[in-house]
């Protein structure tokens, strides 16, 4: 048994230490917002925050999380920045199929927390690890720019 701090709440889970955090979140705790895309850290669909740092939940074993605070797409709206991103994502109509968008928002939140006024190249670089098969690229950039302006 181990205790995880997820989105400000404590969860005690019974899972093997080498189980990836992604499957603990999705199958054991029932937070399905973080998505399984590749299992090898190549697509970014499972991006979560560990103490504010972006991490691929499919590559982080639950045993290695320790006391770090886990934030998922379900909890990112608790911060003003996260709520703002969710709002502009809707207003900018970024999503097509939407499957990758949780990970995109989580990566954008890390970017804007560190660099509140990123330039175009910084936006592109910060989002480069998140794949989108539908091609929402133009709206992703636009949404992040809109989030900067509405700050």
């Amino acid at each position, binding site marked *: 048994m181990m205790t995880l701090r997820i989105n400000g709440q404590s969860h005690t889970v019974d899972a*093997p230490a080498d189980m990836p955090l992604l*499957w603990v979140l999705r199958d054991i705790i029932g937070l399905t917002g*973080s998505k399984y895309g590749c299992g090898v850290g190549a697509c970014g669909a499972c991006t979560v925050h560990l103490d504010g740092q972006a991490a691929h939940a499919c590559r982080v074993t639950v045993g290695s999380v320790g006391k770090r605070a886990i934030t998922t797409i379900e909890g990112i709206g608790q911060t003003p920045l996260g709520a703002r991103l969710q709002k502009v*994502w809707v207003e900018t109509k970024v999503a097509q*199929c939407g499957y990758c968008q949780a990970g995109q928002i989580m990566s954008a939140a890390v970017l804007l927390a560190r660099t509140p006024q990123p330039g175009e190249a910084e936006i592109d670089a910060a989002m480069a690890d998140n794949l989108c*098969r539908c091609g929402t*690229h133009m*709206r992703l*950039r636009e949404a992040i720019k809109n989030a900067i302006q509405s700050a």
Partner: protein
Amino acid sequence: MASASMTKFAQSDDDIRALIEAVRQQPTGLPLNRRGFLKLAGAGLMIGCCLPVSAGPRAKGPGGRGQGSAKAPVFNAFVQVAPDNTVTVFSKAPEIGQGIKTALGLIIAEEMDADWQRTVVEQAPIDGKTYGYQGAGGSTTIPRAWDQLRQAGAAARAMLIAAAAKAWQVDPGQITAQDSLLTHAASQRAATYGEMATAAAKMPLPDMAALKLKKRGQYRLLGKSHRGVDDPALVTGQPLFGIDVRLPGMLYATYVKCPAAGGMVKSANLETVRAQPGVVDAFVIAGNGKPSELMSGVAIIARNTWAAFQARKHLTVEWDESEASADSTVRFAARAREHARSFPAQADVNIGNVDQAFAQAGKQAGKIVEAFYEYPFAAHATMEPQNATAWWRDGTLEMWAPTQQPNRGQTSVAALLGLPEDQVIVHQTRVGGGFGRRLINDYMCEAAAIARRVKGPVKLQWSREDDFAHDFLRPAGWHQLKGAVDKQGRLDAWQEHFITFTANGKTPSSGADYSRFLALYCKAPNLRRALTMMDLRTPSGPWRAPGCCAQVFAQQGFMHELAVAAGRDHVEFLIDAVSRDVPELAVKDPAVNFSPARAAGVIRLCAEKAGWGKTLPKGRGLGLAWCYSHAGHAAQAVELSVDADKRITLHRVVVAVDIGQVIDLAGAESQAQGACIDAFSTALGQQAQIDNGRVQEQNFNAYPLLRLPFAPAVIDAYFVQSDAPPVGMGEPALPAMAPAVANAIFAATGERLRKMPFSHAGYQV
């Protein structure tokens, strides 16, 4: 003599081709007559003001039950109005990222004059008897639903007006409806839809033939930009997708098939697998030999997905590969080059006299161009790996599936398990990417077969590696082309030898046939086309804009070569070619909306917006191409530069589209932009290579999707506004992008790209 397994394999491919044909069918019998509509809408009314309770409330979200509007008065299968004035409209088709849930909702709300801000769009139950076709594919959902949904909205509006007229004892013609409010100006009376809903739902259905539908100038919602109806739930991580389904006591399954299609389980160390932590059971399923349904494999059932995936690492299967695919893409390419050396004796199309035209071009200062174009197999790589959840209890199978073809899934599963169709209940979930992959319901069949052996609900989850290994690939193809322009610089002859594949030895495999309308783009008075088919054992299938998605690359690239050889302006050359009158190529089917004038319209609009003819700095190029795909006309112009390392920078893409009436402008722009990026991504670096029947690319690190830094700086989408009825937007804007990029690279560098992916020639981003 074909073996039984090969016959099954061919049947599977035949099934997929029949499916593509069915999906393609454009609406010809609509609008629905009164009887048809009654049949369609009547069930709810007769049951007594509810959508069929067996399915309605359960259709809300994955696993959601009994929420919401079960008691709100029902007008027809598409419309409910609650007393609090909330209008609920039902989207009958799968949301795969094409924005259909928003678009279908808008069509109903528009005709109903509903307040869109107070309109909720729900996923309709999967019920083909009530709703008719409920698929998403071939960009046909909008055109097939257009009349049906407008009538559903208009009928509800008429019933509300009739109820108000009765209550107020006034002429219905004097009542106006707008934003869910009914008004009688003369008597200064007003009522919300909600206030009138209970009475209105009891009014007789109006005469459908007499219903007046709006004209374009009257639209308040259509043609404008709207938000996505599911986006608030999406950005907060709420469960919407098939993969998000969770049911009480649910188990998790993985299904291991032979990496070479057609391999059968000979033996497997099931006891070892059953002993792994978290594993509940492991068993062999024989399958029915059809890749489109159920192939032989080993199911592992566990307490969670990870336990199932981990247990798999301990699984050893001895495969019988005697009938399995031993395909090799290297071998196919070599054989295709051999075939390309001679034109087949038997032509499929032979118009005019091609040989004479080539001889004349040689003698009379015309130009002859020959080229060999090629493209690889391509994977669908939907972001959501295939999955389905199934629950077998009391002789009924209940399923939750991210599918593009829920009705067909229901039929296939019922047939597979020997159940009556009404004992298979399918819930449509949001779909994390379609692109044609989920027209085929193999994962539903697998989940159903597994659920029969498992107590309680079970979710089948494919790994990403499974997803690449067991795709229905867009087939590779090779085109040996020879064309002639006459001394006036007009297209005079076109000879094409298309080297493709067959699964049944008779007809091209699914996704491998001639694109149907390609000969219409460039009407050569002398035209000859022939096919050579190589046997294919690896499953193929439709991939976004099937046929066009790759063939337009060859055709539009070659058209540019001919324009250059003729010394003609590319735009004028294209318009000249599509506008020619070649009687043998006249479109006779009234359901086909191909139009040279609309083609010329998008080509000119695109050229004008892209600044066609402007002077560009050295190293920059502007390229253009167009296509008619899935009932839409579209053209792309790409401005790019290429550096000394062959690094491509896309400065601007202009895409001009004619899909008739635009429903949701923001959604249509999304599709246009997405299609440009998808096509560029695919053309640049994607290929599925097959060796000994095994797809070599197993994950995204070997199958590159375009990353954000390499997206175009700008994509400007323009839509031709017209009164033409709407067609879909999922596909038309994709095919012309790759040739537009190739033509721009030629303009920038002088190097002609005739092979996808362009990475073969050293190009990169």
